[in-house]
């Protein structure tokens, strides 16, 4: 925090965004401008486009809602996640895998939560967790990759799209901006979900590592030389991506140091990811969407142990995260939304596992939910299609709701169709 006293730093760290008035808002922007201009003056990077971008007002508080997408990769078994504890068919179809009513964490007369998800149960009791059941899409595909594509691109099952729903959100927010930091993925690879037509989000595991890589002097000197050529061909596209990476990496790293979380998180991957996200959320960063994955939930064999281990990781990491958000008074502004590419079949297989199925549940975690608890009917196990659940709720309606009501984006433009909104936010 160059130019600021420790006291000022401490004050910034305890800033509560709800109370930031217009004056502070201007101060913040000025401070950021000061910092970035300062670093430009000392560095070798002299890119006219960046300067232009920094001069434009950076919209941080205009909409301060944040979405965290939690992808449960591999097809999480929804029936052992939100357990229909009074359903005979469930117990009949799963002689060895079913979770008894006593072991499940009771949510209602009909539903219990997986025993490893104690902290989600606590969120449920506080009114900060909502559950959507039977979410899916018509004509479900049972291939992981294809079904994941459908969820990530928000396509119908019979169409192939090459851009992701959050990438198209980025396109709509960031047509001409110099760093696509509105959507970030905590990973070494960028998911299709965050890849737009014009803009692509940034994937990173660790802000410092991304920064160090992008600060390679050779890299930066090439970029300096290359940015001067302005042509519309793949060459200039590569330089554009490079410049967005350098600029984005610098911005993310500076932000990650502003108010790093002091809370103890588990040392798991998801623990580290959520700690980074918590730190960034309490900074001044313009990121609106974070994307993380947990997996693999592809439990064809030994489901009990695998799912319990992964849920254990999730459970331990979600607590410090929501605690962080609460103590920073940001929990009302952050929505965590989980999904998986499909659920699993109702009947267990012969290997202590379950095979690929269809509809599934989604978790919604936030201090700002308007509807909480179990939002719709539990799965109807007496009405199956070839042993699989029937979807009752198209996942694209959930996306439309989040885009429109939470991110204040044009859901029709991003999804290409108009979907009916839900009422959880």
């Amino acid at each position: 925090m160059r130019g600021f006293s420790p006291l000022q730093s401490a004050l910034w760290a305890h800033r509560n965004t709800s109370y930031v008035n217009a004056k502070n808002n201007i101060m913040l922007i000025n401070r950021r401008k000061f910092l970035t201009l300062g670093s430009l003056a000392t560095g070798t990077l002299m890119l006219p486009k960046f300067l232009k971008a920094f001069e434009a007002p950076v919209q941080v508080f205009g909409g301060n809602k944040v979405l965290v997408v939690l992808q449960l990769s591999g097809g999480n078994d929804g029936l052992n996640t939100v357990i229909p504890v009074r359903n005979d068919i469930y117990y009949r179809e799963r002689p060895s895998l079913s979770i008894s009513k006593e072991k499940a964490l009771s949510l209602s007369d009909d539903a219990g939560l997986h025993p490893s998800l104690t902290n989600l149960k606590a969120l449920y009791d506080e009114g900060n967790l909502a559950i959507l059941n039977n979410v899916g899409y018509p004509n479900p595909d049972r291939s992981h990759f294809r079904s994941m594509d459908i969820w990530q691109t928000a396509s119908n099952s019979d169409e192939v799209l090459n851009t992701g729903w959050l990438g198209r959100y980025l396109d709509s927010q960031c047509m001409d901006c110099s760093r696509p930091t509105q959507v970030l993925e905590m990973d070494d690879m960028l998911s299709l979900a965050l890849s737009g037509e014009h803009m692509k989000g940034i994937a990173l595991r660790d802000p410092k590592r991304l920064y160090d890589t992008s600060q390679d002097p050779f890299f930066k000197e090439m970029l300096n030389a290359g940015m001067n050529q302005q042509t519309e061909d793949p060459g200039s596209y590569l330089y554009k991506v490079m410049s967005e990476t350098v600029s984005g990496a610098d911005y993310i790293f500076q932000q990650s140091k502003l108010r790093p979380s002091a809370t103890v998180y588990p040392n798991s991957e998801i623990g580290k990811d959520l700690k980074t996200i918590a730190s960034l959320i309490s900074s001044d960063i313009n990121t609106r969407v974070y994307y993380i994955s947990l997996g693999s939930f592809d439990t064809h064999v030994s489901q009990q142990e695998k799912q319990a281990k992964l849920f254990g990781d999730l459970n331990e990491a979600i607590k410090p995260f929501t605690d962080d958000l609460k103590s920073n008074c940001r929990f009302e502004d952050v929505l965590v939304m989980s999904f998986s590419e499909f659920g699993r079949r109702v009947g267990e297989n012969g290997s202590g596992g379950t095979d690929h199925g269809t509809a599934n549940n989604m978790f919604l975690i936030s201090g700002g939910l308007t509807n909480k608890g179990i939002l719709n009917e539990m799965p109807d196990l007496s009405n199956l299609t070839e042993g699989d659940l029937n979807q009752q709720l198209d996942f694209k309606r959930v996306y439309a709701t989040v885009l429109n009501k939470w991110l204040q984006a044009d859901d029709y433009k991003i999804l290409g169709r108009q979907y009916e909104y839900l009422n959880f936010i």
Partner: protein
Amino acid sequence: MNKNQLKNQHLWWRAGFGPPADQVKELSKQRPEKLFHSILKASEERPVFFDVADPELKEMVSQPMSPGKMLSLKPEERQMIRKQSVQDISKLNIRWLDEMTTGEAQLREKMSLFWHGHFATKTVNILYDQALLNVIRQHALGNFRDLLFNVSKTASMIQFLNNNQNKKGHPNENFARELMELFTVGRGHYTETDVKESARAFTGWGTTPQGEYNFRPRQHDDAVKTFFGKTGNLSGEDILEILLTQKQTAIFITRKIYRFFVNEIVDEEKINGLATQFFENGYDIRGLMISIFSSDWFYDQKNIGSQIKSPVLWLVGMRRQLPMEIQNPLVQLVLERLLGQVLFAPPNVAGWPGGKHWIDSSSLMLRMQVPKIIYRSDAILSKPKDDDDIMMGMRDQALAKNIKRLKNPGTQFFQAKILWDEYIKNFNETTEGSIYAAIRDILLQRVMPMNESDMIKYIDESSRDARIQSITIRLMGTPEYQLC
């Protein structure tokens, strides 16, 4: 730069996988027409089929097995079979990469890579995968009619697009739809009725458990169908024939070939001319490719260095330009995964979208770091995402096998010995002052904005060899090296 050199390199990159190190001295001497002739000639040889499947696995599958016995396999046995199959598909992947790297039939393999993305399937069955690849490699430069007929009858295609489930009274339209949308006429050139009617024509097309095409007359719908204005008891073969009578099929295929081999930005006039010829010559792929690579416009400035290399082309191209022995070949699959092009695992039935879709901040940064990683036998710090379709709950063998691990799980080294002697000898006669330009002109198909004087501080000048090595590694880590 010498005019012939740029053109020859352009030809090597587009009709093959980049200029090989042992041809560097020829690059400025040969005429492009002559080079194309020799690449074409080498590509006309009948390919040696790949067979990497485990003999015991093959033995097991080749025995006629009653459905009852299939069902009686224990879960562990099924798991073992799947595991072996997945391992063998990795072997096939590496085998093909090696062929692309060292094989003489460059155009055939490049063409096969194109068809592999066109007839995109993904199975976890090594026998299906290698059978389809062999069909593709056999017909890659042959006749599109033969290719289409043979591919449509492979187990890989029949399984991937669910034609095994396409039965009289219960048609499954998946194959019929993709056949028109992606393989022949393209979207907008057929109706939903065409899909429904042709799906009925393909009823009964199935495979034996061993993966042989098997027509099941009792599942075939013999009733009258109407397709593209033709009415009768149409068979699946009739549907393919009718689609080939549509000039739109020739246009659709030619446009896709043009975008892959020439330029993503299409020139409809040229495509029409080429397509007409392709159609009139009865879908002779070889003839079409000769027309493209013998034309003057292929060498137009706007077509040179205008494409983003696919990850496979980029990787194989590096191996061709900089000969190396890779000690842990599976590490190449990690790069394929991190960069988004795993052979035998296209993202979906539409294949790899290509072009700008290859590049985002992570993939570009990684591509630019890899030459240095190879040079130092260094670690790849990025970890690819899981592919659950392939792993099916198993351990990730590409990440687990033959790989030194660091604290960070999934981290692995690219252990390779670069054969510098073979490479450096190409510059024996180059004067000191022109070494940089000589290497640059071989490696880059496009002008690099950063000039030599700014590069110097990044070059190891301690010896002539060190200088050549360091210039080479630096230039391979540039944005321009991603283009061809």
